């Protein structure tokens, strides 16, 4: 396997995702040891402001991902609107403008499947609130590769369909409220 590398955290969220995601990320300290990569569905020309919105409010550094950027611990990378975001084996980011997958670009499945292939068991996949089924197939890939799956407890989700669908398709190692997901990440690092 070469040198030991820590796990990468990948998170997918859609409708209602801003609040849930903020709750997860708020639990992470500035010296958090893992990189966190996020697909949040937003309108194609919106969303670019999110990193600024969060700056100051969170301990971890949030930025919009750039192609070929290396993944650093304690940094949160957001997929830019209109691009798929993929993780490479050397722990860097690739973007693509391939057609939308299930009407989404960025697609959670594309991120999760690339992370499963690139990181194998060293991957923690998290599905939060949303009104579609993006992320289900990707979470299944992560589990098949031996990675960890966490799904937001549908009872705590503004939109239940996405977490419910992920649970049906992939199951999960943990089903938790967003704040608890953040706590889990902090404790298991």
């Amino acid at each position, binding site marked *: 396997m070469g040198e030991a590398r820590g796990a990468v955290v990948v998170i997918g969220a859609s409708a209602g995702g801003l609040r849930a995601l903020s709750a997860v990320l708020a639990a992470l300290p500035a010296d958090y040891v893992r990189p966190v990569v996020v697909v949040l569905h937003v309108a194609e020309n919106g969303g670019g402001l999110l990193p600024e919105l969060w700056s100051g409010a969170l301990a971890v550094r949030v930025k919009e991902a750039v192609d070929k950027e290396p993944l650093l611990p304690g940094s949160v990378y957001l997929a830019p609107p209109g691009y798929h975001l993929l993780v490479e084996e050397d722990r860097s980011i690739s973007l693509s403008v391939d057609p939308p997958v299930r009407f989404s670009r960025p697609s959670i499945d594309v991120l999760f499947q690339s992370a499963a292939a690139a990181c*194998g*068991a060293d991957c923690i996949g998290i599905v939060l609130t949303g009104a579609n089924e993006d992320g289900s197939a990707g979470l299944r890939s992560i589990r098949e590769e031996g990675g960890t799956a966490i799904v937001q407890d549908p009872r705590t989700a503004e939109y239940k369909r996405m977490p419910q669908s992920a649970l049906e398709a992939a199951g999960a190692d943990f089903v938790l409220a967003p704040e608890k997901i953040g706590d889990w990440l902090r404790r298991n690092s």
Partner: protein
Amino acid sequence: MTDKLTEKLTDKLTEKLEAELLLEALYRKYGCDFRQYAQSSLMRRLNNVRLQAGAKSLSELIPLVLHDQAFANGMVQDILVTVTEMFRDPPFFAELRTKIVPILKTYPFVKIWLAGCATGEEAYSMAIVLQEEGFYDRVQIYATDMNERSLEIAGEGIYPAESLRSYTANYHASGGRSSFSDYYVANYRMAKFRDELKRNIVFSNYNLVTDHPFGEMHLIVCRNVLIYFNRELQAQVLGLFDASLVHRGLLCLGSKETLDFTPYASKYETLSPKWKIYRQRTQ
């Protein structure tokens, strides 16, 4: 559990080897070189081809590539599939008008290279900007792509009418000064862009991976192409661009691409940090 993970790891190494052999077959037989493409996107595309062909593993595609030219052609098309639009990223074209055009106007004659022009939408967008800025007749645009089928569409300049609404919005958001409908004729299904727009555009086949520098360009625009290449190939192609530019030439990348992680970072100054417009520094 550990045995299962070891098995997974072996499967993954095998799949990687299969992908390498398949790409080698495509390259050795047809000269199409995808061997240095960024792994994640490429594997996605290869696995899509595999699923469509009903194959269980990538190595099952190798005999098809070697013995069935139609299959190989289809596969290359699938790997090269591109989606683009007119005036994609309107603020980029606004920057083009306000920051780049004034620099270009200082030259008596200007050569522009659109590398990876796909089906031509960006070339027509560029021609419209230059025409409105009143100096299109001092410009030659070289629009290149390695996909012959895309180039045919580009040369025709005919696009689905359903895209017109978003193209028109993009055009106005980019600072367009006319009525966008002046630039095309449309029926309910298709829109054909006016031939006079392409009077200074040459569409031609060019392979960024294998072809040679292509000289004395004042501006090279290559947006969302290098994202498909791995770091080594990206650096190689940036070297090709660097060698193809005039002294102090301009280079535009996609807005989510950067020179930062490349060997060329210090050779260029940044004219537009957000829209990734660079200019060669004085040596």
